């Protein structure tokens, strides 16, 4: 399909945290400010309700279906968290999870836990090659799992020097956050195969 880059965009009513209603379009020139929209941990309250993150700001505004997004999911898993509404529009930034109170922190962590499903490989149990398919059995933080890879060359990536990701035939990703932290046998299997 040809993409329709230059398409006209419908102006959307926006809900900025300050609650002002202006008529900017989605690219939001009027909403822009050079300062980062850092959220004041004191003014926020977080709640988990039916598996949903609910956010209140200054007891004035409330988002009943909010979520939390990691801006640097690989290297900074509990810093640089963006809090977004149900349309994935940013409400504001949390620089450090630690700056939140314990309860709020647990709520946000639960939401992160819910959103990020990528398993982390703790140990590689086996790796077999059958034709052009590689069968891996690994232990992850979500339990033991067996997956199949093809096109090893393209499906193994190293986004950071020690961070390796594997993608299986179904599009699932498996992360190894730190290759050096694996046990020798696992590392050996990995080095030999990929």
């Amino acid at each position, binding site marked *: *399909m*040809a*993409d*329709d*880059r*230059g*398409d*006209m*965009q*419908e*102006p959307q009513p926006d809900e900025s945290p300050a609650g002002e209603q202006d008529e900017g*379009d989605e690219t939001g020139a009027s909403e822009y400010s050079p300062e980062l929209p850092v959220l004041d941990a004191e003014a926020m309250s977080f709640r988990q*309700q*039916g*598996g*949903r993150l609910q956010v209140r700001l200054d007891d004035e505004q409330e988002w*009943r*279906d909010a979520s939390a997004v990691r801006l640097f*999911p690989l290297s900074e898993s509990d810093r640089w968290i963006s809090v977004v509404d149900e349309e994935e529009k940013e409400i504001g930034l949390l620089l450090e999870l630690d700056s939140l109170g314990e309860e709020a922190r647990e709520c946000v962590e639960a939401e992160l*836990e*819910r*959103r*990020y*499903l*990528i*398993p982390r490989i703790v140990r590689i149990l086996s790796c077999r*090659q*059958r*034709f*052009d*398919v590689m069968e891996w059995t690994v232990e*992850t933080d*979500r*339990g*033991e*799992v067996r997956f*199949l890879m*093809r096109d*090893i*060359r393209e499906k193994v990536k190293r986004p950071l020097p020690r961070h390796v990701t594997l993608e299986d*035939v*179904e*599009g*699932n*990703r498996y992360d190894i956050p730190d290759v050096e932290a694996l046990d020798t046998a696992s590392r050996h299997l990995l080095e*030999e*195969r990929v």
Partner: protein
Amino acid sequence: MSSSAPPEGFDPGEDVRLCAEADLRPDGRFGREWLVVGESRLWVVSDGDAAPSARLELPLEELGEPKARTLVGGGALEVSRNGERMELVRYTASRSARFGAAAQVLGKWLEGEEAEVPEEEQRYCPRCGMPLAEGTKVCPACLPRTRTLRRLIGYLAPRWKPAVGLALMALVHTGLGLVPPYLQKPLMDEVLAPKGEQRPLDERLRLLGLLVLALLVAHVLMAVISALRNWLVAWLGNRISHDIRVGLYQHLQFLSLGFYDKRQMGTVISRVNQDTGRLQEFLVWGSQDLVTNLLLIVGISGMLLAMNAKLALFVFLPAPIVILLSTTVWRRIRHYMHKFFQRWSRLNAVLNESLSGLRVIKAFAQEPRHIDDFRTRSDELAISGTGVERVWSILFSGLSLVMMLGTLLVWYVGGREVLFGPMTLGTLMVFLTLVGMFYQPLRFMSMLLNWASRSLAAAERVFEVLDTAPEVDEAEDAVPMPDIQGRVEFRDVTFGYEPHRPVLKGISYEVAPGEMIGLVGHSGAGKTTTINLLCRFYDVDEGQILIDGEPISKIRLEDLRQQIGIVPQDTFLFAATIAENIAYAKPGATKEEIITAARAANAHEFILKKPDGYETLLGEKGQGLSAGEQQRLAIARAVLHDPAILILDEATSQVDVETEKGIQEAIQRLVEGRTTFAIAHRLSTLKYADRLIVLKEGEIAEMGTHDELLAAEGEFHRLVQTYQEISTVRAVER
């Protein structure tokens, strides 16, 4: 891999309409859960320690708005219950497609509509459970090898004479190869070191001459046959792969666009390039090596057994070890080679990227960083290259040693036979030579077999494409329509690239001949899809599109395409001259026609400024022309094509005001007297259109003239307002 029936031991007590298996538990760990939808209720069933039991049980009437939410590395199915959103199940990417479909169907049910549960796509081989490669149904593990082989041989059939000749030559060559070792026996026993009584010296000398002459003849014959055979094999292999390649390309040209949508262009290209290349490589070299090696092994084994069965057994003893060892050697080497090539390509990527981005690198003064990067990569490559050689040398030395063990065994056991037994020195020498010849092919057998099976898989992938039927088929009773008036009617047209995800939903409208229609809407509203259907790149799912009252599925494809012209958003120019590019749709066009078209498209003026005028050679994808020039060539092409129905997918790239004016003029001339469908991005185009159709999420939101729609202050009014704001800003920026 999955079941569409609820787990055993769970009884919902009513008919199950939908069941989908999830692979994550609510705590995010791997495990099984099922979403079960019955007539009046919905359950989420967990695979507990004991029997499966319902974790959730909800009456359908309380639920609404099911949505498959995409998470990182998977997703979750959510519904609203009494106004609150809640999560039902979580799953990994493996199950995303299934739950996406489930959410769709469930949504329809909850609104009281009918919907069918779509079948799950087959992504695993039903026989062995191996995953199937994208866009193929061929399982590498359970290929019907013999069938593929037979089909490959089918390509040989028209050239059976050289093929038979080749087989004969292989046989003779192998036979001749066994002659020299065999001649060693008389050479030793009769001439050089006879056991027992000796012949006179001059007779021995004569025999020596004869034997050496025979050896010479055998070697000359072998050389001749070998040269002939290599040449013939290369010829045959190239011819066959040429046949396959052309057949494949021809077929690819006639496959519908739907085929390409489901596959990445890269995989299609590799079918033509790599798979046929791999086939040729094997047909040329692999097959003959395989045959000769097999013949050699059989022939030598026969000779050894015939000469001395006991000694032969000692030769066979290390054979399994050689086979086993060489298999592992090849596997190891392959891994290292992979790594080596991977690093090569990474180094190339670095080189490519940094050289093509040199301007940026210099502008930000980042040269040292890239030099460091390159050094690291190059160093890695050097290490890896050494590694390959090291492994290669160690493993091969090991292999040679094992093979040498066999030879040593023969020396010892055979030597004893010569000393104490009836064995002659000649027989021993023949044995020793044959042993060397025996292990050689063994070493390559495992590699060759691997090679053969991969080539067969490549062949199968090629055949699979050849077996794909063109999706848009011409009806057998297709009507020729050499003269289209240009009346177009959309009648309840519904279409989606994937079933259950309609992009156009029940669209109906009529267009009079010569009318210009402007299609307006957001991306994804269905504008491009409308055009794809009109050109019959795809067939509609429901409803009909009629041209001059005839359904387009009944019009001869050739006539249809001949009378529909497209000015696409991205001009595609071939690496040829400007004139050839303009005359693309009408290869026999005269120079007058070409110039007239170029003038109508306001392209003439820039063309005559080029040193080679109309014969200016364009690079790939129109390299050497500005965006505005490319657009005007595309218009000239359409002018020359002179279609009854014109499709104008307006380019969005920005050109300067003067050029813009030129293009607009050209478009006005082009549109004159033709039924035109324009995907418009420019306000001026919208103004000229006789009628505008505003599409929104696959439905017609508004339809009418420009002024009517503006006055109505609806969807179109809003779009125009935004657009005007943006263009004011742009005008100021200029």
